[in-house]
């Protein structure tokens, strides 16, 4: 069930706050060597094209790499069916937050890098001809931390699903609540959860898909509130960061701790699903649980 190679030791993780992980990196970045890359998990040399064609999953060891929101959407929805919404919603630096870099500058830099206003893509789509509202987080943008914009778009997506009677699918990957918006970020946890209460009251379906890594305030709000919760293999999923826990309890963390399979074993994830099966599984679950 566990693979020591893909379970980073606590020492390779940054120091993290209990509800907020800023940048939990993968153990090693896949080293780009032109057309080739080395798998950070099994260290096999892989032809990049082959990896892309394999949905960004290592053909040798099945390691699921983190992927861009655009790729995720392409993998899940019927071709051309994604209709993006609320794309102009952008972050503001209300607090005037400055650490080593001003938040204002971070926003500009991340927007240039990704071509998007913030870390969440949302819209209507069809998955195998089933109409859904889909939201996908993109870790390229400030580790997909949840500030006002992410919280607002998740909330709007849930409200739209409630209004139009469409299942809501959220693919999570996040370092947690965004520190640079402080208690405004914290409030997004309550806001998104409140919206899910209304969807639930209306009998709507929410499928939460957890991918590597889903942590902190995102896990402790909408991500853990799925009627159905799916997770990608070996995805890191937790509330507190492994390093914080290791420092607090002063002992080695168990093998596979906070990985998708661990959560399924403990009863918090319905199914660990391989990326190639995700689209089919979502469609099938909608047939059982959707309206």
């Amino acid at each position: 069930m566990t693979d020591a190679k893909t379970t980073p030791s606590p020492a390779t993780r940054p120091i993290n706050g209990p509800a907020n992980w800023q940048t939990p990196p993968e153990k090693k970045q896949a080293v780009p060597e032109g057309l080739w890359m080395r798998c950070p998990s099994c260290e096999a040399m892989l032809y990049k094209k082959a990896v892309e064609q394999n949905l960004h999953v290592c053909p040798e060891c099945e390691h699921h790499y983190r992927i861009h929101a655009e790729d995720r959407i392409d993998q899940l929805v019927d071709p051309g069916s994604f209709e993006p919404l609320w794309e102009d919603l952008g972050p503001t630096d209300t607090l005037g937050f400055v650490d080593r870099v001003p938040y204002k500058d971070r926003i500009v830099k991340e927007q240039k890098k990704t071509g998007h206003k913030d870390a969440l893509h949302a819209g209507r789509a069809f998955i195998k001809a089933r109409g859904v509202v889909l939201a996908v987080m993109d870790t390229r943008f400030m580790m997909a931390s949840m500030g006002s914009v992410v919280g607002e778009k998740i909330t709007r997506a849930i409200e739209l699903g409630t209004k139009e009677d469409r299942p809501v699918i959220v693919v999570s990957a996040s370092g947690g609540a965004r520190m640079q918006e402080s208690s405004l970020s914290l409030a997004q946890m309550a806001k998104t959860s409140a919206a899910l209460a209304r969807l639930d009251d209306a009998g709507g379906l929410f499928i939460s898909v957890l991918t590597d890594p889903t942590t902190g305030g995102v896990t402790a709000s909408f991500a853990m509130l799925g009627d159905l919760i799916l997770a990608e293999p070996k995805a890191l999923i937790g509330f507190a960061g492994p390093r914080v826990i290791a420092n607090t309890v002063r002992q080695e963390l168990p093998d596979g701790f906070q990985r998708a399979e661990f959560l399924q074993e403990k009863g918090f994830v319905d199914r660990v699903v391989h990326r190639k099966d995700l689209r089919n599984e979502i469609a099938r679950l909608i047939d059982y649980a959707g309206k």
Partner: protein
Amino acid sequence: MTQLNEYTGNFELEFERPLTALERQIDELEAQSDPNRSATGLDPNVDLGSEIRKLRQSHTAMLKKIYKGLAPGNTVKVARHPGRPQAMDYIHAFVKDFTELHGDRQFGDDHAIRCGFGRIGPHKVLVVGHHKGKDTADKIKANFGCAHPEGYRKALRCMKLAEKFGLPVVTLVDTPGAYPGIGAEERGQAEAIAVNLREMARLKTPIVSVVIGEGGSGGALGIGVADKLAMLEYAWFSVISPEGCAAILWKQATPQTNADAAEALKLTARDNLKLGTIDDIIDEPLGGAHRRPSMMADRLEQYLVQALRDLKRFKIENLVNKRYNRLRSIGEMSE
């Protein structure tokens, strides 16, 4: 009602050090003016009473000055003062017939969150509060106010009882954060908090929450979704502790970076009121709640009595809608 004792320990806030010389002088003069003591070598013509009064006045003036310009990092220190009244102190002070309820009926009884029925003024309520602990044994038992999933589940179980029997809910928030441990993760810390957020948002009974000390992150919010959310004047409320934030964004937690993070996080009551994340501030006695705990308890009781009276006027459907709109409206963005 029980009077709360003022703090008598030796803990000293560094930024209050200018006061200690004055306090020592006042103590000495008071000892000398004590009629039971033979005032040996003292000029009988010196009016000690007026001297003491003068020193007291400058002490008060200095205290006012210090607390007026209190840096956010120092506010955090006041919020963590060992003599600061805790939820159980307030419960002893003004909750009549407090009847504690234990356990989540699933795993155990978490001492970091305490729940029970009782009366506040004319209102029968359910009270939920973080418990940090007083002496060492109590603190360890309460995990220093860092709750496990079973604490959040106990709180929700009791809140559902309150809903069923038509009792409003009062929560007193005081935690550095939910406990980051192996067992906590295994038993679903994130799920427990998330479920509380969802269920408190739609609980069909009024909810008033007050951050009385530390409002650390999801661990605070887990019992802090409310119709009215208030903070005591020197409490803090933020997405992460200043130390946690400094460790990540400044790469190290030192006294300087902790203070910088506290400043950047806008975690004080005034800042939160400005951000719209809280509704009210309850003023503390001069120099913090630990100096006049009974006075603080009176003010908190008055606030709760009034807030409950206001919220009870609403039809419950309207109140739950209003609560949704309150939560829904928080956030700052451009479109």
